[in-house]
């Protein structure tokens, strides 16, 4: 190993290792031997002039270790790590698509985010890529077969779910090869909602980027904004005053309440339980009204800024918040009893779409999908941020790993969120809620994680001393969870596909950015 490995001093609380390109797998093997449940958080690509930097962010023991390597631009080849960590599949495909890195040994290096007819050698996230005037030519299309009417392959019938389908909220394509009623193979194609947010973030100032990343996803908007501003604050070295941290916690938990209530209603719709859908969404309305009271808008909060929050909580609003939360808590008793006793609901979700704990660890899934399979992983407990270190709450896990467990995890998390908000309001410290920060951020880089409703949200920001960021990398939780869907669906009933799919809580705007 010798000279191919250099351990760099711990940077901003995260350990970082510099290796030569072809020894990335050796380092990973050593890491995996020390911690069997290590998983990849993401793979960040970085245009460094003549080289392309690749950073493997590995999640181990509740912290992030970064393994850095570089490949030259003219010959960007590097061994793939999918045989060690199967969950790295999508991350490597994304780097191949957007940076042009070739991963040797990868099972399927097809396009992930860019459309089929994107020009061949144009890699958008490289600094020298000219993407203002891309002529979409159909002769660029590598994979013509996908646009032709699906044909049967022997006894296998090709059923395509999406891009437009009533089961999906947002467009993605899943090609299922079905034998009778059993699904044999699933091939996802994502990228229909790809808007190039990471590239757009490089062309706007940090202040404008807060609003840009907020719009990556409507439902977890506060989490994206919070993660981004926390990362920038790490580079700047500012500490947000305590009152600002508590206010951020309240807004993040309100976001979580909204998202979980929405998903449980949507789950009802997918399994044909319209009454549950109507009731849940009726009970979601007070949460939206509370968000409007606190931030000025029902869904997109726009409440975070670098250095704190933009608005304070008025004393006169507190009774309204407490009443609404108390009403919601009473309703949650009804829903909990419903989920535990209703026979048709249990028939549709129990023992359906089971994900075993070992598979959950190998595929590096995050959020309620992991917690429903017994993996005790929650960024709020592993690396407390904002006020979570001071607020007591339970980490919810269920062991069965089926769709019912994943839905119950979210249901219990709703109760925990209500408790967190009540505690935060009762123990809110006095003082300022915001500090002024300079517009120009000094050179540096930082990583940050936040527990979004769907799982761990990961941001990497690198600044080069100007008012514009050099690189913003976003890894959203659904991006890490889609390989789990492939594992769940294969071998199961086609009629179980909607029920198990919705229990993953897919958010495709997040996935594609």
């Amino acid at each position, binding site marked *: 190993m010798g000279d191919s490995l250099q351990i760099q001093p711990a940077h901003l609380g995260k350990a970082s290792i510099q290796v030569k390109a072809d020894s990335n797998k050796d380092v990973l093997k050593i890491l995996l031997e020390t911690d069997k449940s290590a998983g990849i958080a993401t793979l960040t690509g970085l245009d460094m002039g003549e080289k392309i930097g690749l950073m493997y962010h590995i999640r181990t023991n509740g912290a992030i270790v970064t393994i850095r390597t570089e490949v030259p631009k003219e010959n960007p080849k590097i061994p793939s790590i999918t045989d060690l960590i199967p969950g790295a599949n999508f991350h490597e495909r994304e780097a191949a698509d957007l940076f042009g890195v070739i991963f040797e040994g990868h099972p399927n290096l097809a396009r992930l985010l860019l459309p089929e007819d994107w020009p061949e050698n144009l890699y958008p996230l490289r600094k020298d890529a000219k993407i203002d005037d891309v002529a979409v030519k159909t002769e660029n299309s590598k994979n013509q077969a996908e646009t032709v009417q699906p044909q049967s392959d022997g006894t296998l019938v090709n059923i395509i779910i999406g891009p437009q389908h009533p089961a999906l909220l947002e467009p993605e394509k899943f090609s299922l090869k079905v034998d009778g009623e059993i699904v044999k193979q699933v091939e996802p194609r994502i990228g229909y909602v790809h808007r190039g947010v990471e590239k757009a973030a490089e062309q706007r100032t940090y202040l404008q980027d807060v609003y840009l990343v907020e719009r990556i996803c409507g439902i977890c908007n506060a989490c994206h904004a919070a993660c981004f501003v926390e990362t920038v604050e790490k580079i700047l070295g500012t500490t947000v005053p305590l009152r600002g941290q508590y206010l951020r916690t309240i807004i993040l938990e309100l976001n979580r309440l909204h998202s979980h209530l929405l998903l449980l209603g949507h789950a009802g719709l997918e*399994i*044909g*339980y*319209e009454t*549950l859908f*109507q009731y849940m969404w009726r009970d979601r309305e007070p949460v939206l009204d509370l968000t409007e009271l606190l931030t000025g808008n029902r869904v997109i909060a726009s409440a975070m800024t670098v250095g704190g929050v933009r608005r304070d909580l008025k004393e006169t609003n507190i009774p309204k918040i407490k009443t609404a939360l108390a009403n919601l808590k009473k309703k949650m008793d009804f829903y909990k009893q419903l989920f535990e006793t209703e*026979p048709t609901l249990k028939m549709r979700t129990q023992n359906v779409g089971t994900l075993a704990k070992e598979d959950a660890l190998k595929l590096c899934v995050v959020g309620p999908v992991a917690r429903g399979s017994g993996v005790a992983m929650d960024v709020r407990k592993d690396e407390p941020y904002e006020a979570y270190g001071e607020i007591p709450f339970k980490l919810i896990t269920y062991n069965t790993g089926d769709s019912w467990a994943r839905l119950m995890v979210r249901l219990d998390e709703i109760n925990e969120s209500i408790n967190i908000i009540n505690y935060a309001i009762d123990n809110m410290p006095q003082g300022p809620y915001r500090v002024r920060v300079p517009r120009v951020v000094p050179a540096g880089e930082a990583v940050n994680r936040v527990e979004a409703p769907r799982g761990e949200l990961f941001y990497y920001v690198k600044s080069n001393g100007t008012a514009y960021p050099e690189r913003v990398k976003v890894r959203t939780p659904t991006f890490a969870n889609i390989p789990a869907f492939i594992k769940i669906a294969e071998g199961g009933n086609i009629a179980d596909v909607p029920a198990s799919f919705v229990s993953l809580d897919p958010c495709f705007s997040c996935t594609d950015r």
Partner: protein
Amino acid sequence: MVLDFWFVFRVLVFPGFTSILFFTMFCDWVERKIEARMQNRVGPKFTGPAGILQPLADFVKLLTKEDIVPRDAKKTVFKFAPILAFSIMVFALSFLPVDGATIIPDSSFAGDLIFVMTLITIANFFLFLSGWASANPYGAIGAARVLTQFLGYDIPLFFLALAPAFLAGSLSISAIAANQYFPFVLLAPWAFVLFIITLQAELEKDPFDVPHAETELVGGLETEYCGGKLAFLHLTRDVQIVFGAALVVELFLGGPYGPVFFGLPVFWYTLWFVLKLLAVVVITEYLTCLFARLRIDQVLAVNWRVLLPLSVLSLTLTVAMTTWIYPLVV
């Protein structure tokens, strides 16, 4: 059967085809309003007073849309299957005594219970054909599911319908309706409960909603239909619900017969029939709101493993009760 003015009036106007059409739309409105209120919503509100013209508005809207036949579909079957399904369903409905006599006058005969149920099966078969004739995998799967479901559930339905037939001693619906000294729901409540459950499956409502599962099958057998043909498919489904409820009313609830207070019996019989039918519609809608949708294999498991044995048991029980217990008590 003499073809005179009254015959034509009965068959075409009241209580015949036109009345059935408008009554079906009325039942559709009742269904939607009840479902909405149970789900804490408002339901149709703005078309006509309290939204009562909404089903008519939907029907007219569909008639004004462009009517497309897919290139690869089997054209004749595609065009005529929905209309045939609707017509056969209405024809089956005409054998039921609605206002004290069957809609087509003097048409009841011994064994018309079996005849009517066969007609329903044929109508459902035409629905299957309409899905199969559209060149679409979703349509084909939806049609296959309709076929498996109604063929499977026809058997327990038939066994359960035999219980009131046995109680009345006749296989003619008019005779069963007329001979209910006590409504058969009291004499054979087990058959009534099982019949309602089987009816949920026949009418394709939750929890047996599989053929209409949009989240899995997009549109089921209706996927490729639009315009007037889709209007007929929707109408067929609504007439199916009316027919199912009417069958329950005839077999278990005493048909149109009830106390006559003053004036023409025809008016009172129609009124009782309508009220009893609406009660059955409300019950089935309540069951729909209560449950989620089961998977197709779970639906079939419920049929073959639960309902079929229970329906045979119910028939045995009815026969036993009638032969030995009821003559002592009644």
